[in-house]
């Protein structure tokens, strides 16, 4: 009896865990990752297409008005460029992890799957937090100006630019909260599955 029960003992290798039916936690994780992917992609795209043009008439020469065109684009500010890049990279990471979660159950990861996902999740959380905060403080500067440094606020002149940037920032912070929750769940999964 003893040798037979020994051969029937299941092996807790990492690749065999994924052959089981997906538990409730896995579907929560997939749903959260989908939301985080959509949020980071939305933040990156909205900031990328953020542009506002204003035409002012500064003088009139004879009958033709002299116009001055001012544009506000996201790439005038390095902080917004970093914001777009960080959110783009994070959305690529979320998409890859989504694919791995949904379709990657047949690939052999040599036991590294959950650990790599947990580490990459944490690194992406820090990346998104850096990008979102830099853009947040630049937006605060644009909205309130800084009287001590003689920097005027620009949001009263370029209202639509400011509103769209604010929307992208909200999406990015929502994505940050979601990615933090996902990271915690991934680590808990690693700890549970190796007990």
């Amino acid at each position, binding site marked *: 009896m003893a040798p037979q029960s020994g051969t029937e003992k299941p092996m807790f290798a990492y690749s065999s865990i994924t052959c089981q039916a997906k538990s409730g936690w896995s579907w929560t994780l997939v749903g959260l990752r989908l939301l985080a992917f959509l949020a980071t992609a939305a933040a990156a795209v909205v900031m990328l297409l953020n542009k506002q043009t204003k035409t002012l008439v500064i003088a009139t020469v004879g009958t033709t008005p002299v116009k001055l065109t001012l544009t506000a684009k996201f790439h*005038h500010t390095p902080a917004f460029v970093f914001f777009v890049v960080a959110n783009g990279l994070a959305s690529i990471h979320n998409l890859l992890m989504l694919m791995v979660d949904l379709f990657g159950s047949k690939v052999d990861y040599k036991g590294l799957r959950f650990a790599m996902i947990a580490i990459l999740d944490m690194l992406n959380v820090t990346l998104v937090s850096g990008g979102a905060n830099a853009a947040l403080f630049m937006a605060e500067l644009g909205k309130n100006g800084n009287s001590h440094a003689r920097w005027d606020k620009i949001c009263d002149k370029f209202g639509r630019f400011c509103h769209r940037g604010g929307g992208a920032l909200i999406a990015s912070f929502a994505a940050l909260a979601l990615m933090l929750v996902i990271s915690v769940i991934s680590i808990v999964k690693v700890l549970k599955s190796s007990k």
Partner: protein
Amino acid sequence: MAETKRICTFLLRLIAFGTTVSAAIIMASSRERTTVLALSFEAKYSDIPAFKYFVIANAIVSIYGFLLLFLPSESLLWRLVVALDVVITMLLTSSISAALAIAYVGKKGNPNAGWLPICDQVPKYCNQVKGALVVGFISVIIYMLLLLYSIHRVLNPLLVEKS
């Protein structure tokens, strides 16, 4: 091997504590008074919200680092340290990136928004802020290394057992 690892992490945490404390102190003590067109104005770190956030974040992280130096090495709280390290690293990266974004505007200005650089008028203040940001960046790198190490330390014994 375990002994050298413990000493190495203790030293690394000590250095990390030192860098965050010095970043906060250098930024908080940056101040310069200058006269521009018969008007005297003073540049302080508290004029700029991003620098205030930098000081506060580094102060919080140095308190955390100080408390962690006294944690005994075999305690079970090291698993909590993994989670707290993630939050702390996130706080540090956000504070350094915000401060860097505003410091860039202060140094190079933003011609599209009509913002002039202020570093020419207050060079001593600018240099001190630059120093604080450099030290802050070093502390970010050290805390990232510590985070990777704590993940490795908590997860690796569990991985090695089963494989």
